[in-house]
């Protein structure tokens, strides 16, 4: 060992640091992250001695420095932008433009009706068709979506979990009719149903048949589609729902483990399918933490898979897609989002992702425009081509701090994962409600920290812009899209061999009932005969029913994390006065309408409002406006709070107000929140909506405003 160039002593540094801190020890400046990990101000070689791993290399187990030996020096990460615009035709145009502009892979966003296995003509999806993604009712729509896109050369990722069978089948049949064989297809189907039961809620069937579907797909893909990823185990949605990095790691790896076990229990060899499992993580604003998260994920997955004695090195090698956090985007001063996305994208790349989606800056307001999508794509191109970033593998490797932080994440996540295992694995844990409650508690705690400025968000709780200029937002004529889809459906139903369709659908129902037969194989038959997405879903629903997860609620967490009790007790006093005057506490129905299952906002509002003294009713998910009105009348609430994140607000709230009038219940006030473009505010107000809360409204302020509007009406 050569002698150290410098002779230094930590004690000396501590002395100096302490005097700069006015006599306090350096540890007084430690920062506790949301994960409850203490970050020191200085890391040294001493911290490296505590690592549970030593010198490692990329491409070699335990893969902490990256899955591939050459990483971006060999092949740059794939720029894979997630997009889908209402109709297959419009989306196709957008895809082809993007491919021409330098994008390398496709990622399809489906509309909510498709996610939930409804055809566009179903009465429950009035406000959902063409919102938040492309409407696909049959293979004919899918063929338009991939028109002039050669599927043997293009890697396609599809975010689909609920209606995964008819959608994957439509993709396969589309390729078939393009002359492309199944073994030539490359890409990813999300097929991660377990996380849907924790967050996001775009499931269709109860948990155990849903896991069977996932298993059937893993089995089919491993047999016939060797270049295709059969599951994309997603931490992203957990993070978006409020999970900390530790929770995101533990629960997504736990889900992955559950899929592995499902396949093993069917008699599959670990090496026959594990190399085709991929991951999908969210990248938020905690820069160093996110880099460490990707490193820790690879380490932990490698360790977990060893239990199954893999022979192929690829079986335990975690490959991942990443997306910058949609939740971190703000409606206020939205150009700041470009900077946020850049920082997040940098973290994803320094963490060693295989592909990346960067959000458009206007996604907190609505769907991206052409300009905002171009900036998002260019963010990645600039990182790839201007800044010299891809030339060195894992540049943070060996950093005292980064290695130490990776180690902390590994330890903490392993602990939480052990808790999951004690409950009997992730399926059991999900049934117990533990992961969902933990994530919701994190979300409520974080909201409280933001509402009181402990966590800074520029433009929201600090440095607010006075006169930010309005941003142009893409608007979608939902009615026109729906009508076009319905026309297409009619045509398909008229021109097909109905007897053939019925027999294939019956075969599906039968396979669901008996448990025999591969559901993807059978779905391909039905779709090829022009059965629709809704019909294939219904064939299975006949046996399994449509699931509605029980809603659990937490209380006390929001107020508990709010040190400024004065602000909360002011609201509580106002509520007490209201109750004295009116004869009961203000009562609010927090509801979501349509097929939008993103319930983070609704749950945080519910728990925080209750903490402030409201009586809060939570409505079931996926309600129609009529259903919400009936529940609100029956519970005799003062106000309905609609949470919308999927752009269906205009159609659905208009319908809600209409039904309220029909039922002579205009005394019930309506407030709305979520992702609502400011340009829609006037329209909603003209309908009679009293208050609209954009992302970033502090909850005590929202509560006050709701109270004020009730004082007027009651």
């Amino acid at each position: 060992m050569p002698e150290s160039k410098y002779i230094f002593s930590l004690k000396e540094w501590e002395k100096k640091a302490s005097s700069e801190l006015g006599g306090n020890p350096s540890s007084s400046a430690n920062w506790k992250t949301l994960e409850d990990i203490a970050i020191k101000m200085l890391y040294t070689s001493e911290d490296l001695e505590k690592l549970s791993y030593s010198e490692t290399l990329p491409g070699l187990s335990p893969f902490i420095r990256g899955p591939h030996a050459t990483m971006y020096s060999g092949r740059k990460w794939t720029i894979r932008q997630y997009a889908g615009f209402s109709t297959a035709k419009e989306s196709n145009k957008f895809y082809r433009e993007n491919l021409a502009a330098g994008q390398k892979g496709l990622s399809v966003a489906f509309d909510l009706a498709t996610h939930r296995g409804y055809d566009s003509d179903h009465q429950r999806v009035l406000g959902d068709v063409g919102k938040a993604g492309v409407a696909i009712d049959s293979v004919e729509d899918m063929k338009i979506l991939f028109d002039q896109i050669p599927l043997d050369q293009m890697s396609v990722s599809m975010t689909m979990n609920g209606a995964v069978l008819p959608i994957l089948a439509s993709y396969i049949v589309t390729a078939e009719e393009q002359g492309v064989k199944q073994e030539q297809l490359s890409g990813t189907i999300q097929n991660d149903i377990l996380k849907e039961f924790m967050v996001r809620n775009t499931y269709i069937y109860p948990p155990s048949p849903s896991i069977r579907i996932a298993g059937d797909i893993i089995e089919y893909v491993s047999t016939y589609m060797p270049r295709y990823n059969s599951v994309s185990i997603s931490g992203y949605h957990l993070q978006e729902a409020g999970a900390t990095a530790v929770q995101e790691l533990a629960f997504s790896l736990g889900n992955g483990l559950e899929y592995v076990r499902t396949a093993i229990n069917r008699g599959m060899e670990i090496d026959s399918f594990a190399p085709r499992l991929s991951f999908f993580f969210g990248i938020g604003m905690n820069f160093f933490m996110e880099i460490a998260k990707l490193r820790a994920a690879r380490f932990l997955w490698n360790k977990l898979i060893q239990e199954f004695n893999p022979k192929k090195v690829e079986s335990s090698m975690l490959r991942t897609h990443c997306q910058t956090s949609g939740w971190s985007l703000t409606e206020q001063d939205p150009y700041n989002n470009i900077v946020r996305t850049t920082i997040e994208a940098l973290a994803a790349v320094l963490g060693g992702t295989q592909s990346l989606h960067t959000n458009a800056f206007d996604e907190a307001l609505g769907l991206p425009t052409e300009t905002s999508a171009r900036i998002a794509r260019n963010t990645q191109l600039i990182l790839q081509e201007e800044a010299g970033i891809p030339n060195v593998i894992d540049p943070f490797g060996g950093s005292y701090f980064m290695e130490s932080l990776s180690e902390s994440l590994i330890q903490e996540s392993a602990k939480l994962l052990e808790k999951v295992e004690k409950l009997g694995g992730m399926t059991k844990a999900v049934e117990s409600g533990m992961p969902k409650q933990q994530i919701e508690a994190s979300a409520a705690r974080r909201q409280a920290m933001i509402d009181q400025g402990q966590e800074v968000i520029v433009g929201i709780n600090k440095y607010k812009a006075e006169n930010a200029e309005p941003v142009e937002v893409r608007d979608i004529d939902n009615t026109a899209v729906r009508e076009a889809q319905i026309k297409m459906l009619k045509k398909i139903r008229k021109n097909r061999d109905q007897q053939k369709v019925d027999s294939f659908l019956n075969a599906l129902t039968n396979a669901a009932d008996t448990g025999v037969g591969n559901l993807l194989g059978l779905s391909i038959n039905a779709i090829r005969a022009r059965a629709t997405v809704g019909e294939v879903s219904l064939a299975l629903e006949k046996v399994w029913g449509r699931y509605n997860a029980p809603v659990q609620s937490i209380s006390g967490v929001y107020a508990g994390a709010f040190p400024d009790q004065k602000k909360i007790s002011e609201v509580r006093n106002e509520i007490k006065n209201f109750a004295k005057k009116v004869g009961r506490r203000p009562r609010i129905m927090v509801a979501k309408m349509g097929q939008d299952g993103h319930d983070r906002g609704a749950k945080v509002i519910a728990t925080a409002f209750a903490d402030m003294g409201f009586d809060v009713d939570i409505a079931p998910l996926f309600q129609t406006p009529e259903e919400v009105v009936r529940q609100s009348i029956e519970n005799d609430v003062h106000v309905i709070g609609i949470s919308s994140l999927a752009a269906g607000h205009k159609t659905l709230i208009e319908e809600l107000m209409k039904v309220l009038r029909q039922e002579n219940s205009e005394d019930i006030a309506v407030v709305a929140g979520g992702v609502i473009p400011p340009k829609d505010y006037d329209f909603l107000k003209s309908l009679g909506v009293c208050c609209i809360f954009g992302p970033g409204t502090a909850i005590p302020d929202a509560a006050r405003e709701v109270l004020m509007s009730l004082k007027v009406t009651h």
Partner: protein
Amino acid sequence: MNQKNSTLLEKILQGDRRAMAKAITLLESTNSESFEKGQELLDSLLPHTGKALRIGITGVPGVGKSTFIEAFGLFLIKLKHRVAVLAVDPSSPVTGGSIMGDKTRMNELSQHPNSFIRPSPSSGVLGGVARKTRETVLICEAAGYDIVFVETVGVGQSETLVDSMVDLFMLLMLPNAGDELQGIKKGVLELADLIVVNKSDGLQEPLAISTQSEYRKAMQLLSSSKKSWDPQILRCSALEKVGMQIIWEAVKNFQDALQNSGEWAQQRRSQSAKWMWALVEEGLLKNFRKNENIKKIIPEMEESVSSGEMLPSNAARRLLEKWASSKKTCTSKK
């Protein structure tokens, strides 16, 4: 009766959902004007009440009370019954607020035209009953609901109170014979007319069967609360909607047995007496707190007791004496 109340009455009798909801709010109101209106309405409703079968349902959190009511309620609706559910959710003692998510677990039932589900916050009343659940039952009856469920949270002091307002008291249990009778107070068991072991499905079914026989043995040692009925121990899977027929038959047998023996009517009469006393207690306490002389010294008394200067018993005596003397002056003035 004022006109607003009389239209409300008519609408309730027609089964109008909004009118029922508004009437329940009046009854629950702490505002004295609304409360008076509620009382007046209740008086006029009384002739139209008493015809429903009133079923109380309790069990530890997680036993599946709401899921059970969803399954059983839909089963009863298929038999042409009209089903009302009064669910009580705990209000936080700290914030006073509450979260009511019952309908998310009764998704199908809550949408059915022949059901009415009203969750109420417990608003500081001990245990799991809202202050005005008893009166709310009457509104549902007047509106033509012939089966009324009263669902309560958890297992605790509230059960006696629920038992005093229902005809049949049902206790739901989990299949775990190992920790037999976990957390269930003996008194609660004695009140139960039906004990139903829920979640008898899948891998848990054998456990549910053994739990059922454990409880059968245990119940032989307890005395029954009814003269003409021995409690039954049944099994069901609310999730898979299995066992509803057997439970319904047991309920009907119960009703027959009690009606034949005359115990049914007798129970309703004694419940009326209990209701009267509950109202007297509530009224007294309200008057007591409203009394000017009492109001003045309450903060002082609370302060002295919590600081340890005064014994609670002494403080209570002083308050009561003050109350008695102020009553006397009131009377003498008259």
